[in-house]
């Protein structure tokens, strides 16, 4: 029997079915007597609902809204908070808020009914931007000051003392925009009933999240609901909590109609009426001595959370904890503020709050370095965190930090120092650099205190089935996990099964998020596999294990002190560009990255993740512009919100350093988000150097470069 070794490159287990078009996505599913649902949504960003005028509904057609939630149920979707309403009731807080569902058998008739449903509003003035929210434009949305969540952390001497001693203070405001996930498979779900239980088929990252979120609508127990994840064509965080927003109304409808009901978003709906990456505004005040050395940094970080909290508090925490990047500054004070606005709630997106502050700190340091005449790479490398170094939460780095070696790899490959000197500033050519990290798994002791993940292996004859709630969404986890199990069991990957999860059949291994799947769930599966191997002769049996928290990671969630993460992935990127001085078109001529992801589980999957993450980050920096005017998103299709093609970023050289992680399966750490976290800042650095401009806001399409050139 051929064995599967962890260092073999394997063809992805899902590749063939997807390439042949045989994989079934949610849109492909159909059931007998299935009805369709259309969402009736708010068309105004803020106001009171005065009246809902429905056309005459033919027999067999329904309008489901807040009034249909039973007395023992609550109109709330339980994400991290419970503030997101299943149906708007009385008022609306953002454009696209669910008011009701139109349900019936014929989509042409439903479309007619939707077009002829009129809602009267008493409109109010919306707050759309962070500044709108802070100035309480239109009155408060939340609490007394529109602050949905906030936190701070500090390290070293008080910043007041540091500022008193500083020779100069460099103050800068850096901003990032909305970003849309653009998963090819739009959001969709089907609800039905089987054997007295509600069953959902859904394109989702976290089946157990959906169950938890919707059960309270009808006052149900978790066991009354079954979530079956169907093959999911991309998610990027957009299907972490957002499937709740489809499944909640569907559950209420099902409790009344009792037939299968399908709700699928069109691309336009997915663009206009789904969660986005949090826009951010970071104000850094950096204390410098006369030679340009950093004495301390004070940062105030605002995230635009939209109308509801969803996952924002956790996103903001990650933003704050990454706001000093990969650096060990003597003193820092970082404050994060999540504000409520009348935009679609912002939510998880690959990087989960870290990319915004990493862009900010990297770009800020570039500007300081340039001001004092240092090469940014050389300047930044003075402050690299090292093993034992103190983090912004007074925790310590427990692993070897290989950034110097990683930088040398890409500096040599790109000929960085020659080009940096030769191109200089304003020559039309530029080379830029960035460094970044990503804390693995849930923040703090979340894995231990909140998730308590379980995983199970089931042996039947010579085959082994993996039972976890973790999902394949295109990232390659079904391949990685089967490989981890096969390697530990000493069997072939072909003899390991890992079907899409069904919450009634598998233990809860936690959400497929936070780059935790390989690192955390993979480790539990590996431990199960080791035991199963020893007992292999016992016949058919199963092994289930719970997550074990490694010793020596103190964390206090009430004060945000200690080891915010169990370990970090590390990255370094260099991007080289040429800018056409006539058209401001940026041509990216080279991309070099090096990543420390512990030990790679599969080189092909890693390659795919690096290429995809880096290009998505470069799109974020360069062209992915999502504007919101008066509460309405302006981009509604894939032709006006563009993501990069292979023509835009044609060539990447990717390198790894091997740095096995003590508590990961086969030494692996998380990597799905890390690879998104830094190329944007390297691109911006390169464009700034090529044109001699200063960029403080991304994205920077040609028209924004035009503006920046006028300010030179």
């Amino acid at each position, binding site marked *: 029997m051929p064995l599967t070794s962890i260092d073999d490159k394997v063809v992805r287990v899902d590749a063939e079915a997807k390439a042949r078009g045989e994989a079934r996505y949610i*849109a492909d599913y159909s059931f007998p007597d299935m009805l*369709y649902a259309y969402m009736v949504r708010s068309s105004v960003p803020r106001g009171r609902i005065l009246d809902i005028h429905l056309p005459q509904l033919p027999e067999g057609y329904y309008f489901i809204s807040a009034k249909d939630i039973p007395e023992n149920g609550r109109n709330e979707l339980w994400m991290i908070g419970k503030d997101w309403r299943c149906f708007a009731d009385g008022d609306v807080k953002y454009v696209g808020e669910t008011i009701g569902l139109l349900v019936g058998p014929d*989509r*042409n008739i439903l*479309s007619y009914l939707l077009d002829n449903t009129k809602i009267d509003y008493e409109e109010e003035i919306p707050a759309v931007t962070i500044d709108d929210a802070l100035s309480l434009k239109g009155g408060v949305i939340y609490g007394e000051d529109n602050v949905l969540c906030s936190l701070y952390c500090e390290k070293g001497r008080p910043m007041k003392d540091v500022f008193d001693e500083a020779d100069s203070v460099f103050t800068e405001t850096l901003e990032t925009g909305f970003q849309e996930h653009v998963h090819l498979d739009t959001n969709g779900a089907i609800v039905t009933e089987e054997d007295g239980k509600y069953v959902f088929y859904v394109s989702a990252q976290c089946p157990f999240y959906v169950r938890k979120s919707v059960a309270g609508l009808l006052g149900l127990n978790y066991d009354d609901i079954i979530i079956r994840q169907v093959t999911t064509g991309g998610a990027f965080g957009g299907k972490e909590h957002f499937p709740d927003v489809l499944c909640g109304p569907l559950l209420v409808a099902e409790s009344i109609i009792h037939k299968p009901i399908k709700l*699928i978003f*069109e691309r336009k709906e997915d663009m206009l009426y789904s969660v986005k990456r949090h826009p951010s505004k970071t104000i850094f005040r950096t204390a410098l001595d006369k030679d340009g050395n950093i004495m301390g940094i004070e940062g105030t970080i605002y995230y635009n959370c939209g109308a509801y909290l969803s996952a924002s508090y956790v996103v903001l925490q990650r933003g704050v904890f990454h706001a000093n990047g990969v650096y060990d500054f003597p003193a820092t004070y970082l404050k994060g503020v999540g504000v409520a606005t009348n935009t679609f709630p912002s939510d998880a997106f690959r990087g989960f709050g870290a990319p915004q502050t990493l862009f900010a700190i990297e770009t800020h340091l570039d500007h300081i370095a340039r001001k004092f005449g240092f090469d940014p790479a050389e300047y930044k490398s003075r402050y690299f965190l090292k093993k034992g170094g103190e983090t912004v939460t007074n925790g310590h780095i427990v692993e070897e930090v290989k950034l110097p070696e990683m930088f040398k790899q890409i500096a040599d490959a790109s000929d960085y120092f020659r080009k940096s000197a030769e191109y200089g500033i304003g020559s039309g050519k530029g080379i830029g650099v960035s460094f970044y990290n990503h804390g693995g798994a849930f923040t703090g002791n979340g894995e231990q205190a909140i998730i308590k993940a379980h995983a199970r292996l089931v042996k039947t004859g010579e085959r082994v089935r993996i039972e976890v709630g973790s999902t394949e969404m295109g990232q390659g986890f079904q391949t990685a996990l089967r490989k981890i199990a096969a390697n530990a069991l000493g069997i072939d990957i072909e003899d390991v099964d890992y079907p899409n999860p069904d919450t009634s059949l598998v233990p809860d291994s936690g959400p497929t998020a936070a780059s935790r799947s390989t690192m955390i769930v993979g480790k539990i599966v590996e431990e199960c596999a080791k035991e199963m191997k020893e007992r292999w002769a016992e016949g058919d049996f199963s092994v289930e294990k719970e997550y074990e928290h490694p010793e020596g990671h103190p964390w206090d969630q009430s004060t945000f002190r200690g080891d915010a993460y169990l370990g970090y992935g590390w990255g370094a990127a260099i991007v080289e560009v040429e800018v056409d*001085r*006539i*058209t*401001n*078109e940026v041509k990216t001529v080279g991309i070099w990255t090096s990543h420390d992801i512990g030990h790679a589980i599969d080189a092909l999957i890693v390659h795919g993740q690096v290429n995809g993450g880096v290009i998505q980050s470069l799109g974020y920096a360069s*062209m992915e512009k999502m504007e919101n005017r008066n509460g309405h998103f302006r981009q509604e299709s894939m*032709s*006006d919100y*563009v993501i*990069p*093609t292979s*023509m*835009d970023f044609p060539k990447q050289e990717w390198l790894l350093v091997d740095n096995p992680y003590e508590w990961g399966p086969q030494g692996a750490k998380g990597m799905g988000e890390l690879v998104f976290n830094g190329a944007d800042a390297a691109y911006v650095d390169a464009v700034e150097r090529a044109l001699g401009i200063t960029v403080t806001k991304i994205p920077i*399409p*040609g*028209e924004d470069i*035009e*503006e920046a050139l006028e300010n030179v």
Partner: protein
Amino acid sequence: MAVANYIPETLDEALLLRKAEGAIPLAGGTDIMVQNKRGIGLDPILDRPVMIIAGLKELKGITLHEDGSVEIGALTTAGEIASSLVVPWHVRMAASGMGAVALRNSATIGGNIGNASPKGDLPQPLILLDAEVVLISFGGERRMLLDDFIKGSKKTDLRSDELIKSVIIPPHDFTYSYYRKIGMRKANAISKLSLSAAAVVKDGLVVDFRASSGAAGPKVIRSREAESMIIRRSIEDIPEIVPDFLDAWDRAISPHAMPKYRRNTTARMLTRFLEAIVNEEDHGIIE
């Protein structure tokens, strides 16, 4: 509200359907399908029947006439135009930059003209080249300048009984040629702005000069007023004319979104092209 749809097998059948019912011609479908898309499982709502004319041989193909003019049948695809050896350079450049490969293999020149989007790729160089459009109906054929045929954004002079038969591009022999399309990304993008320019220079005299701006107003912009400032002028005189010429061009265009970027970039592209003329750079394509 279902309406009948047709697949005519001959041009006569198609013209009959045009005359009798004003049937909407569908060639590649890359505009009509997108514009009338209502959602998964929903029928489009159209007030007239659609006829699929993609199979009409009479409207296909590229012909080089004896007088040097090139005639392109309305159903010729962007892909065919891009790889043709006889189609003028400006038009081939525009065709090769349309959408993605799959779109280029479906989208036709007739559709791109009939759709009359100011961001359409092909009208811009065709108008630069004084191309004419041939329209056909049972009443016969008529010919007119494409620049006159396209009346504004999404507006043409096409009668309800007519079809676009072909486009005829008169011969030319430019000393210098220029073409740029700027999209939101490097491929598969709608034009943010575009510019074609061409000049004939003989013995230090600019004999012909023209330019056309795409995505810069309700239709492709050619300013004869601005062009005439350069024509029949000696190349030594051009530097001092450039500011007035750029002003005139700037007045002619009316970009709606991103006005500053579009205006400034257009001015820089025209400046670059004029600079090549003044500097007597090697004849051919200017980059």
